[in-house]
Structures are given as structure tokens and as C-alpha cells.
């Protein structure tokens, strides 16, 4: 049976030789620049995944809420940036070079605000029913998507980026690196650092972690857990908003742009072990690079399939993720 498949595949390949690209056909120097450039194109994916995953991990890890509408918060951020660019281009052309920075901030707060609304109107009824939050937020995502469609139209939109974000610089003539990718990268690192400081060095962060450890106890020692939850959710959504802003530099925004990333993002979170920030970063990096490298040597779709398969298998062997620590049950 397998021979049979092998045969027909080989036959298939004769006609369609680039189904997979054997490494052999590249010279060493080519391979080197491939890895450099693939590395970088992986990094921009890594940035978006990480920003998405950060928000998701905070919400999931801290509150046990599975937010399937997270992608839509990302899309929201992207749309905000788009609106800003429209406004700026039509009314304050002078600001064009700088608006993007401001837009990012606005994106953060808009998403956070909507997050607050959602937490208050929906999520708070569902604490400690993770599976139900999963379904409810899916419903929410449908509604948000259709809202985007009615407001911004089905056609994908794309903010006009300031010139300094476009183009690329070339260290060598076979390598060149898109500037927007580097920018997003930097943005991601800053935000991640900020989140880390916030979670582990600030008083609110302390409260948040305390609440995770022991909700009742924290309540007893006077932490307003409900407020903490609400805040956590907002923060997560806000970060998703920033992810959206970052996303506009590499892709175009449509009503369902967010939903395309949600599964990958969840895999990142679970894969990294929901409790550890480092884990999330590491797995985002691994998955993004994996996808980008395999995307080079396999054909587009199958590259993704390969990565998904690997992740699923690993998760079956280590369900709690790669970086979860052994705890006293």
C-alpha cells in the first residue's frame, strides 16, 4: 500500500518537481543567507504570535478564561491603526511620519476598554467554567467579526505606513531584512519586558499572581479579586490590540484576520506551559521559526501541516506544555 502511494507520489513529483525543495540544490552560502532571512521572516511572525500569546497567556493563566475572541481584539487594534492613518492622512498630513507610534497607544487603550466592557457584561458570569467561556467567547468573536464587516466592509483594509517603515536594508547583497519586521521585533521585546516588570515587580502584578495562587486567601487579605480579574482581562486585550497594530505592518486587516491566528496562538500558549512567561516566549519563538524554516523547504500549506502535527504530538506527550513545573497535587 505504501509503495503504491510512494509510486504515485513520485509520479506526481515528476510533473510537479517543487512539491518539496531538497536542500541539496542550494550552495552553502545560499543556505546561510536562507537561514538568516528565514530567521528574520520568522521573527516578524514570532512578534505577532508572542504579542497575541502574551495577552492570551495572562488571561488564561491568571483567570482560567479561554478567550477565543482574542483574535478579534487583535483585529480591533489593527482597525484602530487604520482609522488613525485615515484621519491623519486626511486632516494632519504633517503628522504622517509619527502617527504610527500614537496609533499603537490608542490601539492598546481601545482594545483594553472593549475588554473591560466584555469582562463586565459577559466574562464575569463564567469564572471557573473554562469550557463555557470558550463557547461564549467564540460567540463573541462571531459578533465582533460581523460588526467589523458592517462597519469597515468585507474588503481588507491596510493603513498607509510611514515611509521609514517600508523598504529593507541589506547587510550583504544576498541578504536583506525588512525594516518593518525589525521595528515590530523591537516593539515586541519592549512590551514583553514591560509585562514582565509589571507582573513581577509591581504591586498590582503581585496581587494578580496572589489571586492565581489562592483566590479565597487573597480575597481574605483584602485584595479585590474581582477588580484584579477585570484588570487582568483588560491588560490581556490591550496587548492583543498592540499585536493588531504590529500586524498591520506585515499583513492587511479583514474582519477575520484575527481568527486566522487564534488557534496558533493557543497552541503557543499551551505549548509553552500556561504558567510561565519564559515558556510562552520560547514556544512562540520555536513555533514561528519552525513554521518559517519548514515553510521554506516544504510547500506553503504542508509546512504548516508539518508544524501543527509536531505540536500536537508533543502536546500529547507533554500535555502540560514544555515548561510547566512539577507541582504538588
Amino acid at each position, binding site marked *: 500500500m505504501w509503495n503504491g502511494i510512494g509510486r504515485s507520489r513520485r509520479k506526481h513529483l515528476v510533473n510537479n518537481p517543487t512539491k518539496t525543495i531538497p536542500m541539496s540544490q542550494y550552495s552553502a552560502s545560499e543556505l546561510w543567507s536562507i537561514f538568516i532571512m528565514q530567521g528574520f521572516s520568522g521573527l516578524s511572525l514570532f512578534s505577532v504570535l508572542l504579542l497575541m500569546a502574551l495577552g492570551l497567556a495572562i488571561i488564561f493563566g491568571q483567570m482560567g478564561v479561554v478567550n477565543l475572541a482574542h483574535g478579534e481584539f487583535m483585529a480591533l487594534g489593527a482597525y484602530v491603526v487604520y482609522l488613525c492613518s485615515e484621519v491623519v492622512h486626511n486632516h494632519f498630513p504633517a503628522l504622517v511620519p509619527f502617527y504610527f507610534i500614537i496609533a499603537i497607544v490608542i490601539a492598546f487603550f481601545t482594545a483594553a476598554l472593549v475588554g473591560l466592557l466584555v469582562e463586565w457584561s459577559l466574562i464575569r458570569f463564567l469564572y471557573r467554567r473554562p469550557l463555557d467561556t470558550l463557547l461564549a467567547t467564540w460567540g463573541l468573536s462571531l459578533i465582533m467579526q460581523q460588526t467589523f464587516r458592517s462597519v469597515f466592509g468585507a474588503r481588507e483594509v491596510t493603513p498607509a505606513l510611514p515611509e521609514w517603515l517600508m523598504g529593507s536594508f541589506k547587510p550583504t547583497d544576498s541578504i536583506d531584512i525588512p525594516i518593518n519586521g525589525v521595528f515590530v521585533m523591537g516593539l515586541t521585546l519592549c512590551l514583553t519586558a514591560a509585562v514582565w516588570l509589571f507582573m513581577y515587580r509591581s504591586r498590582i502584578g503581585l496581587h494578580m499572581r496572589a489571586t492565581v495562587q489562592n483566590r479565597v486567601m487573597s480575597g481574605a487579605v483584602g485584595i479585590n479579586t474581582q477588580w484584579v480579574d477585570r484588570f487582568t482581562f483588560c491588560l490581556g486585550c490591550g496587548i492583543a490590540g498592540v499585536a493588531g497594530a504590529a500586524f498591520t505592518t506585515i499583513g492587511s486587516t479583514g474582519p477575520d484576520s484575527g481568527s486566522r491566528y487564534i488557534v496558533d496562538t493557543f497552541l503557543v500558549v499551551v505549548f509553552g506551559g500556561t504558567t510561565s512567561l519564559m515558556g510562552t516566549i520560547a514556544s512562540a519563538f520555536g513555533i514561528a521559526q519552525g513554521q518559517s524554516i519548514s515553510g521554506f523547504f516544504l510547500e506553503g500549506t504542508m509546512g504548516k501541516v508539518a508544524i501543527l502535527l509536531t505540536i500536537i504530538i508533543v502536546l500529547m506527550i507533554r500535555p502540560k506544555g514544555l515548561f510547566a513545573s*512539577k507541582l504538588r*497535587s
Partner: protein
Amino acid sequence: MIANTNTQLALSDLTVSFDGFKAVDGLNLSIEKDELRVIIGPNGAGKTTVLDLICGKTRPTRGSVKFNNRELVGLAEHEIVRAGVGRKFQTPSIYENLSVYENLEVSFPRGRSVFGCLSFTDTPDVTERIQRVAEEIYLKDHLEVEGAVLSHGQKQWLEIGMLLMQEPRLLMLDEPVAGMGPAEREQTAELLNRICKGRCILIIEHDMEFVSRIAHKVTVLHLGKILAEGSMEQVQNDPQVIEVYLGH
């Protein structure tokens, strides 16, 4: 320690550590047939962890658990149970929305495999056993009552009853009289003395008065190590134990 013919349960060099913290540390312990052993000790001494280790809920970092000379370490929980070990949890864990009868029925050691379960029917011997156990645990008039509505003490009994349905050779009870009134404690003590015939029982208990009434032998645990072992009065007069309990 070599397991002599009478030794049912033998723990040797049992150790487990969570992120470096040793909850149980090189524990050696053996329990004889028909023996009712009580483990006491201050909070965090690792008492419950010992039970977890024996019944497979937690995997030891090191050491062995021999039951009738059969190594339990590495077996899955249900296999350990099938080997004849029954374990009652600290908080009574019964099936709240099943009746007492059904609670016991589900615990009956037949039709445990998927297909056994599908083909299982309530044969007379099952009903007969349920009746007998219900009688033993003072619940024979409550067979049709839903688990949820039982009193705290009755729940404790029901869980013990559920264990008895399995006819275990080793019975491990975590604080069986917690939240019981004097009368119920009385009955529980009787119950325990009755059922330790033909099997050995391992109990974790805080209430010294109750311990002294049931225990054949007492083991004092402290920081995952055995502090003292012997009859109740021996232990009570042990200076170290007093030190630990009164704490200075």
C-alpha cells in the same frame, strides 16, 4: 527491613520531593496483618503525602512500596486498587448526585472494564452485599437517599462503605472522624475495630483521644521523617514528640 510472613505493607526508603522540597524523606514503615496503624503529626509533616504515595496518586522520587511483597510503585491507581488497596480522602468524596445504593453499587468490584461495565447487571449477590455493607456503616435505612443530602458524618461512613464494597486488604483513611459528633465518633470507632479483621488499616488522625481508642500502634511523622513509633503511651511520653507538638 525484610518483610516477614505477617507483614502486609512495607515502605522502604520512600522519598518524594517537589521542586527540591522533600515532603517525605527516606520513610521506612511496615504494617502487619489485622493491624490498625495510626499516623499522627503536625501539619505539613507529610502524612497525606504518604497515603498519596502508597495509592499511586503521587509518584515517589525514590524508594519502594511493597504490598504482600508486590511492588506498587509504578502501577496505575486503578491497578493498585485492584491489588487490594482502598483509600479514603480527607474531605468525604462520594458521588453527590447518586443514591447511597448507587454509590455502593458503582464501588462493587465487578464490571470495571469498559465491556464488563456495559454487561453489568444487578445480580442478587450485588444487592446482598450492598445491604450488608449498608448495615455495617449504619446507612441501611438511607439506601435510596441521594448522597448530597447525607450529613457530613454519614458521608464519611458512606465513603468507608464504598471502600468496603471492594473488600480491600489495606484500608487507608484520611481523618475519618473529622466533623463528627461524639456519638458518631463512638460508632466510627466500633466500625473501624470491626472491619480491621482480616485486613490492615492505616489511619491519619489528629484527635489524640480518638487515636488512643483505636490505634494498635502509632507512628509520629515530622518533616517527612519518622519521629517516633510505638504504642500510644510510649509515643505520648517521647520527649521529641512533646517537643514537636508543644513546639518551642
